[in-house]
Structures are given as C-alpha cells and as structure tokens.
C-alpha cells in the first residue's frame, strides 16, 4: 500500500482513539474523589474559601460544559492552565518533554548497546556457558526493583566514585547527557531482559532457517552471515517490542524520575493527579496519547521498510 495514503489513514484512525481518551480522562479524573479546591487550598482553608475557589475554576459547571470548553480551547491548541502552577499547561509540558525524551533516548541507547550484542551472543552460543550467564543476568535485570538498582548505582557512581552527578539536570547538553546515563542504564536493565530474551530466541530461530543455510552454501563468510542475515533478520521482531516499551517509557518513568530527580513528564503527571490539577492531567495524557500513537505509526512504517513482507494495512 502507498505509504503516504497509509499514514493519512492511520492519522484518521487516531482521531476516535484520541477523542475517546480525552473523554475518558476527562470523566475519570472528575469521578475520582478529591477536589482541586481542597488540595490547592490546603489545611487551613475555610468553607468560604473553598467555595470561592470552586466557583472560580468552574467546579460546578455541568460536566459536558466543562468538556465542551476544554474541546473548544483544544481547537486553539490551548490546553488550559495549571491550577497549581498557574502556568499554561503547554509550557509546563514542553519544559519537561525534553527530559522525558532524553531519558527515553538514553534508555533505548543502553538497551540497544548492551542488550543487542548480549542477546545476539546468547543466541549464537545457545545452551553454552555465555548463554547461561547472559540469561541469568537478564533474569536478574527483570526481577530487581528499579529504585533499588537506581539507588545502588547512585551510591556507587554518584557518591563513591563521583563519576556521574547524583542529580543534576543542568543547563548544558553535556550536563544533560551526564545526568541521563545512570537513569538510562537503570531503566534499560529491566527492558534489556525482555529484549535479550526475545533477540536470543529470534537468533536461534533464524540460525536454523534455510535461508541462512542457503547463504552459507553460497560461500559467504561467517561474519557476513551473522551480520547481514542472522542479526538483521532477528532484529526485526525485537524492534517492535522495543517500540512498545518506548511508548510505555514515555509515560511510566516515574520511579526513575523520582530516584534520579529528573524533571520529567512522569513526575509532573503523578503530582498533577495527586493534586487534582485537572488541566495538566488532561493535557499530559493528550500529549502522551499523541506521542504513543505517532511512535506506533513510525515503528510500523519503519518496520515495513525493514521487512518488505509486511504490508501496511
């Protein structure tokens, strides 16, 4: 199928999902107990103050009206402004988005750099010592709590060896990069386990396919076969899994963000839920949904480019 038309169709398909998610967030967030007035005003608020605040934020407006206003603003790319920070939501999000994206990139980087070779090696040396070591290591990665690993790494590389900052998002790119290394490794450790296992199985499967044997019969060198045939083909399904993880990373790094004190979207979202900062939650989820859908689209397209068998529909 024509790629462009495919993209357009996928974008059109996103609209209902997107729409339903907005409704869902909108309703859900207002269904849960806790009202912004109480959280914003704190312990000492009197009944009158609470009342006044509620009036101000339109707490008593019917839900559909609130939603309507939300949609109307949305059409002007206005996500409203944060109750807590009194700042346009879009600014809040845009401020934190780079951190989250940076973190995601770092995680993917380490997953790829460490996980791919290990997974490949485990598959090549199937049921030999390296395979066992790598598999046990990956199991460890899967079942060690992130915050624990994170704190341990900080203790080791932040405090004892002072190689990386414990927490310094900083202002310059090198500072940002330094700040992202340890969190990237920590989060990658868990994901890597999945990637390694998946890649290993793929390598085992692909090594046994007849096109690899056929390639050998052509007299190609082992290195070329490993790289061009086994690794490349084994990677395809793994990338899909990786992309699923990337999507969930964008919204779910809260623990890493907390441990490493990164000013990312996860922390913002969680804090906003905790303080019932409605517009931030709505805006955040919206941005998140769009990002996830677009990432999915991109992976599908990339996948179809890498694997000609996959048709886009």
């Amino acid at each position, binding site marked *: 199928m024509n790629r462009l038309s495919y993209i357009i169709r996928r974008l059109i398909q996103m609209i209902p999902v997107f729409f339903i998610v907005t409704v869902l967030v909108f309703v859900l967030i207002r269904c*849960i*107990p*806790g*009202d*912004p007035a*109480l*959280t*914003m*005003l*704190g*312990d*000492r*608020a*009197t*009944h*009158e*103050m*609470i009342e*006044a*605040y509620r009036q101000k934020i339109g707490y008593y407006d019917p839900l559909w009206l609130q939603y309507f206003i939300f949609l109307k603003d949305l059409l002007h790319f206005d996500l409203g402004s944060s109750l*807590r*920070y*009194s*700042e346009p939501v879009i600014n*809040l999000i845009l*401020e934190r988005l780079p951190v989250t994206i940076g973190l995601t990139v770092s995680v993917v980087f380490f997953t790829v750099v460490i996980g791919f070779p290990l997974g490949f090696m485990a598959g090549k040396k199937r049921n030999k010592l390296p395979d066992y070591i790598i598999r046990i290591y990956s199991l460890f990665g899967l079942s060690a709590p992130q915050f624990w690993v994170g*704190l341990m790494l*900080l*203790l080791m590389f*932040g*405090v004892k060896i*002072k190689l990386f*900052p*414990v*927490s*310094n*998002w900083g202002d310059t790119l090198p500072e940002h990069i330094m700040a992202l290394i340890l969190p990237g490794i920590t989060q990658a450790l868990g994901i890597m386990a999945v990637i390694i296992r998946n890649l290993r199985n793929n390598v085992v499967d692909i090594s046994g396919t007849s096109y690899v044997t056929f390639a050998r019969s052509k007299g190609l060198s082992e290195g070329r076969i490993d790289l061009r045939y086994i690794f490349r083909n084994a990677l395809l399904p793994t990338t899909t899994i990786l992309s699923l993880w990337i999507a969930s990373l964008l919204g779910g790094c809260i623990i890493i963000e*907390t*441990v*490493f*004190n990164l*000013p990312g979207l996860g*922390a*913002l979202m969680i*804090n906003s839920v*905790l*303080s*019932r900062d409605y517009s931030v939650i709505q805006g955040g989820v919206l941005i998140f949904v769009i990002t996830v859908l677009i990432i999915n689209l991109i992976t599908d397209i990339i996948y179809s480019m890498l694997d000609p068998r996959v048709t886009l529909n």
Partner: protein
Amino acid sequence: GSSASSSNSSAKGSEAASSGSSSADASGTLKDRFTMARPIDSDNLDPVTNQYKYDIWVLASICEGLVKIGDDGSTVEPCLAKSWDKSEDGLTWTFHLLPDIKFSDGTPVTGADWVFSFERAMKHDESIFYTYCKSIDSVEAPDDTTFVLHLKYVDPSILTNLCMCNMVVQSKAYYDKVGEDNYINGPVATGPYYIKDWKKGEYLLLAKNPYYRDTVNMNEIMLKVVSDAQTRELMLQSGEVDLITEVPFNNINDLNSQDGITALGLPAGQERYFIINHRHKPFDNEKVREAIRDAVDIPQIINVVLAGQGQEANTFIPNACMYWDDSVPYPKRDVEKAKELLKEAGYPNGFSFEYCIVSGDSVQEQIATIVKQQLAEVGITANIVVYENAAFRDKYANNGLDFYVGQWTIQSNDPTSIADYWFIYDQSDAYMSGYKNDQLTKLNELAKHELDDNKRAEYFKQMQETFYKDAVAIPIYWGTFPIAYSDKVKDFVQSPLGYYRFQYVKCYK
C-alpha cells in the same frame, strides 16, 4: 511583646539554628552559590495568596514588612519600621519607616507601595492570611517614611500579625506590570534576596538583592526540589548540595557519623496530634478518647520514628508559642487505666476503627505502625488505611476520617490562629474533629480582644485545660526540622516558624 513562657525554646532555637558559628574561620573563601535540596517546590510566591509552608518559608528571605519575628521565633523586632507609636485607644498605629529603602529592582519604596501592599492584603479575603489583617480598617501613608494603620477594634496580636508575609511591602509598579495572574511568580520586594529564576518543580534560584541595606553573604541561593529523601542524602554526600531538608529522622545519627556532614533537628514550631473524629462512634465517648490517650506510648514513638529528635507535647499550642501552658498534663501510657476506661465506656473487648494516613508520608506511616501495636495491647484494633493525598483531603473535608495524625506548623508565635482553628467550629469543624464547645469558642473570642497579657494567658490556660479534660485530641510531639549539611556551611538559620534567613548563611569552598 513576647511572653516569658516561650523564652526557653527560643534560646535553644537560636543556638541550634545558627549552626557552627563557633568555628567561623576567616581562611575559607565563600562559594558563589549555596545550594539546598528540599522535597517540594514552592507553588505560589505571591505574598498574599500563597498557602504552603514551602512558600512562606522562602518568602521570608524575599519580602519584608514593618516588623518581623526574631530569628528565635518568639520576639517581634523592628524591620522596615524603625519604631512605632500606638494611639491611646489602641486603634491607630503610626510606623516610622527607614529612609532610602529600595526594592530589589532599584526603585525606591514609596508610601504608595505600602498602601498598595496592605490594601491588596485586605482585599483578598480568600487568602489564608486574611485573618491576620482582619482587624485593620484602613491604612494611609502621609509621607514616604510614615505609615499609619487604623484598626477596627483593639487587637492584642496586631504586632505579631504584622510579621506575616501578606503584609510586606511590594513594588506596585511591578504588580501593575505583570498583573494579578502572573503575580504568583513572586513580587519585587525589599528582602535580602530576589527571585532570579524559577523552574517550577525543579528549582528556585534566589540572588542577592544589590540594594539590600545590610550584609548578605551568598550571591545566590539555589533551592532544588528533590522529592526522594534517599536521593537528597546521596546528593549531600556527593557534594552536589550543601544542605538538605526533611532528612528521615532515623538517618540523622547515621548521617552525623559521616565525615564532613552534620545532621540535626532544628527546633520547629510544629506539632502533631492524633485527631479523633468525635462525630464517629465510639469516639463520641469521652472515655474512649481518654483510653486511647492512655494507650499510646509517645516516648516510644519519638524514639523509633524521630530517633529522639522531638519533644513530647501536652497541649494544642506548640511550645514555641506564647501562652503555652506547661502545667497541662502530658499523655502518659497506662494500659490498665486504658482498659478500665474502655470497660466503663462499654467496650470491654475493644473495638476497631480506621486509622487513616496519607500515602507517601513516612512519618505518618511509621507512627501508625507503632500505634497500631500499642492500641492492640489494650484491645483496640486500628485498621491502617492509606489514602492518596487528594482523596484524604476529600474524606477529611466530608468528615469521613475516623482517626488520623494532624500537623500544625505555626506561622507566628501568637496562638490565635491555631486556637481559631480548633475552636471556631464554623470555620473548620474544630480541625475537622467535630468537637464543639461554645464555652471555648467564647474564651477564644475574648482572648482575641484582650490587651492585657496576663488575662490573655489566663484565657489560653483555660482553653488548654479544657482541651485536655475533654480529650479533644491527643498531642503527640513538637517536631523539629531535620536537616543535614556539609561542614562547609555555616550560619544556616531557619527560625522555629520555618522561615529561612538566607542572609546569614555562609558556604565555603
């Protein structure tokens, strides 16, 4: 004026607060910037509409008013007003202002700024600080060095109230420029520091006010937000920050034992209570409440949870406040008596209730863990239920909580506001406990308008005694601000009210 009763705590406060002043060596050179990490960011630095302690504490280094609370937290000292006169009837106060005061942007402070600032505070009746300026009828500034207050009625605590952050002088020109909506990003004022950069949720950077009339040591103060306590500690250990706040109590000793780090609890005007909802059975029964008071073992709580960094409390007024009464009995564990009381109340086999805690508050969680066992020993079953913050508040506002730990942090050493919160039922359902006692409400009202210090003290004594007698709530402890800092830091001052006095702090290279 200050009362004698608070003097002992203030003395202790000033000693501990000005850390390590003895070894003030001239050899070291100062760093450019002092960095501290705290768990939560300020939300709103509008002096009038802010709500959180994290706002007020910082504002204390940004804004100044006519008078200020001393660093020990108990005395009222002159600030921008060098002296003041009070009219005969006590309704007109005339303040004589320091000359040539400038805002941090270099513009001079004028009478118009004063009037604007006060009128704004008086206009915002939804502000939680509104009560402090309730008694003011009007203000005027005959010239740039004189400022006059007209009161509606005689207000004995007017001077302490004037120390509050909502009655500080701010630049009207700046306000007009940015408008009400953006004002939460902070005012332009006259304090030793001004807000240089603020990335919400990430950091707040203060810079030295070049026009400040006094010495200010550090060029910049960086307040980082680091929500995880463990990460804060690691940052201190790695030298990324010079000072951290809200150290978990049980780590204080550990941190202290490390080279180059000092950890301690600064005295705080902070009190925790077990708050019992009188509207829920069986807590409507006074005997039951007393039984609980007898069942809990507060020294153990202080030992385990605070690692000893706290002081047993006896009444609803923190000991850092005026009119605190030492003679009110302290809760004391007596298991037999508690059982007896339960039997009398008709619960010989105990009962069970919901002990509500807010998620993420480790102190609350730890207290709950211990109290659960202590209560179990008299036959009462406490089911610990964790609520996420907003849900907790919702339940709290709708009388849904059975039993929880409340915390009050004072903002002024006058106990009026806390007494209001406990005894003006309509305002807050008596700290949401549902306790209603008209007599106490009346006493509180009397104390508010009484100019005679002794008489006021007497009213407050009565309130405290009744509070104990009715077992309204169970005071637990007066807390401390647990901080830890590197030995490079000298003279960090946080007053018992929590105010940061950044002008004193020195941080060496």
